[in-house]
């Protein structure tokens, strides 16, 4: 036989390894991630009068509401930090987390029509959602910075070196939202009940996270329990670094990192398992 050796560039198989995550392929589709992020950004504000100003309006009003309800009426402590900046910090971070989590958890059900027509690495979608939300977060952080500078000048807060951990904190939160979001998105393709669970679960989860209260006010037993919430370390570290208040220890952050990496790992595996056949069940 003089035929040139037959070679194959790809094999599509019924069985594939659970660990066969094609990150290289995702990288090849980076332009698609960029286009998805751009699409999300454009489509949010087309035909709105205020446009990106809406990014500011949401945290401002939420913060004011919290200030009145939790600060004035319920009189929850803020570890001595000014209420406005304390709540704004919590709201800004929480908005990012909940937005990214809800977005990624709808990956399969929300994009079924595209996924059913054309192939691209499915991981592209949750990644682009997390990045879109990161864009929104960076705009909201500007608002936070403005308020923060005001309090800094008035000498009402005392930030410290942990400010530098902020990018790492944001990354951790992004990975956390990505991991949990992927688990939910994978499971909701078959069991739609989970989207119901997530919808109210995320509201309840906010109260389990130190968004509107400091960890320091928790009684001993709950304080220990709170450490196993991956967001506790992140929120406390953020407030500790920028406002100089709170009950923060690096151990909390290590626990968070560890838990988040495990969840991310589980998330990628479940996602990878479901992405090949979800069109049949969705």
């Amino acid at each position: 036989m003089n035929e040139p050796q037959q070679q194959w560039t790809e094999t599509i198989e019924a069985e594939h390894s659970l660990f066969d995550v094609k990150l290289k392929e995702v990288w090849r589709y980076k332009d698609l991630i960029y286009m998805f992020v751009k699409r999300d950004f454009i489509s949010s504000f087309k035909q709105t009068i205020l446009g990106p100003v809406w990014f500011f309006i949401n945290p401002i009003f939420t913060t004011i509401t919290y200030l009145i309800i939790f600060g004035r009426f319920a009189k929850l402590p803020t570890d001595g930090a000014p209420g406005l900046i304390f709540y704004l910090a919590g709201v800004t971070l929480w908005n990012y987390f909940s937005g990214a989590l809800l977005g990624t958890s709808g990956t399969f059900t929300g994009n079924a029509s595209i996924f059913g027509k054309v192939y691209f690495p499915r991981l592209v979608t949750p990644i682009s959602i997390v990045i879109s939300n990161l864009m929104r977060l960076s705009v909201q952080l500007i608002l936070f910075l403005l308020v923060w500078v005001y309090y800094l000048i008035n000498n009402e807060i005392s930030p410290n070196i942990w400010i530098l951990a902020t990018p790492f904190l944001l990354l951790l939160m992004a990975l956390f939202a990505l991991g949990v979001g992927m688990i939910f998105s994978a499971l909701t393709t078959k069991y739609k009940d989970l989207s119901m669970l997530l919808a109210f679960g995320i509201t309840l989860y906010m109260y389990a996270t130190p968004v509107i209260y400091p960890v320091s006010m928790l009684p001993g037993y709950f304080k220990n329990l709170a450490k196993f919430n991956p967001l506790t370390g992140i929120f406390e570290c953020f407030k500790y670094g920028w406002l100089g208040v709170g009950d923060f220890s690096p151990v909390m952050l290590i626990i968070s990192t560890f838990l988040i990496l495990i969840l991310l790992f589980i998330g990628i595996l479940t996602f990878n398992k479901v992405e090949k056949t979800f069109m049949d069940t969705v």
Partner: protein
Amino acid sequence: MLALKAENISKQYRLGQVGTGTLSHDLNRFWHKVRGKEDPYLKIGESNDRTTKGDSEYVWSLRDINFEIEQGDAIGIIGRNGAGKSTLLKLLSKVTKPTTGKIFTNGRIASLLEVGTGFHPEMTGRENVFLNGAILGMTRKEITRKFDEIVAFSGVERYIDTPVKRYSSGMYVRLAFAVAAHLESEILIVDEVLAVGDADFQKKCLGKMNDVAKGEGRTILFVSHNMTAIKELCNKGILLNQGQLAYRGNILDTIIEYQKNSEAKARYIHEGPLDGAMGNENIRILEFSAQPNHGALIDIESGIKIKLRFYNFKAGINLDATFELRTYEEVPVFHTAAIISTNNDSETKEYCVEFVLPRNLLNTGNYYFKLIFGEDQRIPLYISANIIGFEVENVKFGKNMSVLPGIIRPELDFKINNYDSSTIF
């Protein structure tokens, strides 16, 4: 060199409501897996015949498909609705994975299962070209390089910076197809995209597909119900029937094979004792068939030869056999009778009626015949069910390979006079 090879691929679907009982099946599956046994639900399942009610909840949409495709071939995939064509394309384009089997590919695969996938109404034409291109697997660099060509092909230059929600549906489809047509991939999978747009644009699309298939040496898999387009564009064919590979060969043979195993048979022949034949105590039908009058394929230009043989038990009456032709959409085409006896002199014997439906009469489509035997053209002796059905394939009309509307497609003798403008004014 092969571009693609499919080895024993099958795809199983679960019928009915997905969701009820899934948990119990999943647990059962898991339990079998833990004990190292085979998936219990893979053993069951029926072939995908949607006309009969099956016993199993699981059906095989595709079963044990094997084929190889040479580089540079243009393959037409044909089959009835539900034969598994779209499922096959979905597997090849990785939208979903096979239940069993393997597919080997050599080169980048781009699939066009629907044009305009992912178009966002709020974004401009320009932005959508980039978005859609990226979804189809192009890099931004590639799209930038081809951008002008894409816009020129689509013919919507003027609106390129307008959100596509302001587009007419025609413009939308044009732009979408233009992006898809400029994909650079070694293997291109196309499903029925040509069923969109006006006749003019369809022609343009077919032309482009032709360039891709013949000029650029790429491998193409093409699914369509338009046999003319398939005949023009493809050199080989794959025929699927109820999820199984029924035939593989050059495109013309595949189309002929496809007609042979039509849903309603183009031929009814009875053998054996007379009482077993279709009919009643008055009439027994022995043979009824529709065959091409010229060539091997029923198409618009072949003419159709109809043959009816039957046994008559009613002697001494005025017998007639009425042929009623209907389209699959139940539109009557004609209802006309062969009057067999006029002087009350029918006999107890076998009769044979033959006639030819002239060429250039029926347009492409599915038709069936129904028979009514009568006495004095008033009293029905026997009314048959829809006995034979056949499909008339399309042929090119001039340079146009699209399916033209209408039930009939007559060839008219057009007289074209060129008036001197001086005689009018």
